[in-house]
């Protein structure tokens, strides 16, 4: 009895302690990155300037820079990173494959196509958000249909997503060459994935979406965890798998879609954050909230580096995550094939 019950009662708190520690360290890193992002830049602000700007007692220029630009950008980075981390965790758990992230299976390319169609063919002045949503969701539907028709062979699904991505990339290139130059330049900017132009209303939209979708995930969290045990076990535990999968795909797609709508496609966060979280926390499955915290921190750090690394040049953060994330994915492939 003692021998049987002892190990779990000891390892469980230890694991939990490790997870708590990791989340604490991650949040600390995020705080440091936030301070760096708020205080450095071409317009110098000290910590006390930032504090007084937050209190509403700073002078005009400081208030404009801190409250109008740096704070919304920081919050948007956190929210978008969290949304992408969550979406990645959901996709990867559903597909039981660390590569099934929204950008690899074509969601990002589809969002970009939707946005470009909107910008170049329908309403040049409107925000690309609606198009990005529709395009992304349509792409996921197509990939899922292909996945179903080829059987649930996961590698094929990923290859199909890659093939669809390349097709959509060609469509995107075509749309860019056909668009008038000023629209093309705008769209190209958006395609890089950048947080430069985020405003407080974007942040409100992001937080709202995160709140609603996160709440849905809280509601189904217990059933979500049973999916890791396999479909049959989950079914025998009374989970209605079909409905749950559909719901989860929609939630993950909406999370990615909202993030993409605000900042453009930002790759590899959804791919890397869940795996980073799982490894640092030492959990067997992919931790949902850990992925969200990790994603938020990674994107914030990336955005601060993107702003400052080659200053005054601002690298779109999507490009930076593509460099790092591409290298990371390459390393994973190389390592797992050994």
């Amino acid at each position: 009895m003692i021998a049987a019950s002892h190990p779990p009662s000891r390892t469980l708190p230890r694991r939990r302690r490790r997870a708590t520690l990791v989340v604490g360290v991650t949040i600390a890193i995020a705080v440091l990155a936030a301070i760096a992002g708020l205080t450095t830049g071409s317009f110098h602000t000290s910590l006390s300037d930032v504090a007084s700007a937050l209190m509403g007692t700073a002078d005009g220029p400081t208030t404009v820079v801190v409250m109008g630009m740096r704070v919304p950008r920081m919050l948007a980075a956190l929210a978008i990173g969290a949304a992408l981390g969550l979406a990645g965790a959901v996709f990867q758990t559903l597909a039981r494959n660390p590569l099934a992230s929204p950008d690899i299976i074509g969601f990002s390319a589809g969002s970009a196509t939707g946005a470009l169609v909107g910008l170049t063919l329908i309403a040049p002045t409107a925000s690309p958000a609606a198009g990005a949503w529709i395009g992304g969701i349509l792409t996921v539907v197509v990939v899922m249909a292909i996945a179903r028709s080829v059987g649930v062979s996961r590698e094929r699904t990923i290859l199909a997503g890659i093939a669809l991505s390349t097709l959509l990339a060609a469509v995107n290139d075509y749309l860019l060459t056909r668009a008038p130059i000023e629209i093309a330049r705008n769209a190209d900017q958006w395609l890089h994935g950048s947080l430069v132009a985020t405003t407080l209303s974007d942040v409100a939209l992001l937080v709202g979406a995160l709140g609603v979708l996160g709440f849905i995930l809280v509601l189904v969290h217990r059933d979500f965890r049973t999916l890791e045990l396999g479909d049959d076990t989950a079914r025998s535990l009374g989970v209605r798998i079909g409905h749950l999968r559909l719901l989860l795909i929609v939630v993950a797609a909406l999370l990615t879609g909202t993030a993409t709508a605000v900042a453009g496609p930002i790759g590899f966060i959804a791919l890397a954050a869940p795996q980073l979280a799982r490894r640092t926390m030492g959990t067997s499955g992919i931790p949902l909230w850990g992925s969200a915290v990790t994603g938020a921190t990674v994107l914030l750090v990336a955005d601060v580096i993107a702003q400052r690394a080659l200053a005054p040049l601002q690298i779109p953060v999507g490009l930076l995550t593509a460099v790092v994330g591409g290298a990371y994915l390459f390393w994973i492939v190389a390592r797992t094939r050994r």
Partner: protein
Amino acid sequence: MPDLATVTPPTAVTRLVTRHRAARMRLVILTVAMVVAVIVLTVASLAVGSRALAPADVIAALFSDRRDAAGVIVHELRVPRTLTALLAGACLGVAGVLMQAVTRNPLADPGLLGVNAGAAVGVVVAIAFFGVGTASGYVWFAFAGAASAALLVNAAARPGRRGDTVGLILAGVALSACLGAVVRIITLADDDTFESFRFWAVGSFERRDADVAAQVLPFAIAGLILTLVIARGLDQLRLGTDLARSLGTSPALTIVGAGAAITLLCAAATSAAGPLAFIGLIVAHIVRRTVGGDVRSTIVLAALSGAALTLASDVIGRVIAIPGEVEAGIVAAFVGAPLLLWLVVRRAS
């Protein structure tokens, strides 16, 4: 019962011979068809454009040195453009067949496996950091980039293992994404680099001057010769390493030679024409479907169909969006990407 013993072997052999003959027949027919296609497309490529010329004018301009409008257009714009497309296409077609033979992967393509992205990084580094402005200068950098990328992907995904398609493709996609973003960061940082790079990067044959084709021609020829040298070894390798060795082939040497040939061909094509994905994939697929996977007997066909396909992409791109142009790379992707999707889906069933 004795019937079976005496009848079956000859039938099997006969069937094999018939199939072999049919494949040879198809090879000859297809090769002739591709020669015709190349000729027709060459004429079309010289005639079609923002100022269309009648084929008769084209031929008249070609064989005289009169410098009227038609003469200038044909000699200075359309001939270089056409030659570059033919050369790049031939290189990519052969490279695609080689690549699929070496990796035994029906999805292998220079563009998909990161070779183009490697060459692009080479070119952008040449422009941004070394002030290189001509294709003859790019070509070395494109080589270095293409070769490094090819080696990296090969090392990462260990090609040659049957059935391991995902690893190779993923490694290529990951590397392409990473290198593509590096290229964009460099071009964002420097407007002049962006201007020079832009015209190279779209996989377009617009504004290629005659020197470009001439400058990369030696590399293309070297690649093709190397291909001819190692083709026999590659075909023997398909029988298995041991059998190939007993037939006098050195597997390691053959693979290294194939890698060198692929790099020469891709770098020549890419430095002349910009990154063109899918030409290799489409050509290799057509060749394998119609005449089989034998490398040696299909090199000429691969070169011809690559050239025809690339030129067709360029001509179509000039026609479908008048008065503008759609780059050949984009036109090729509109054919190649659905093919890739179809291959992926079909292989499952």
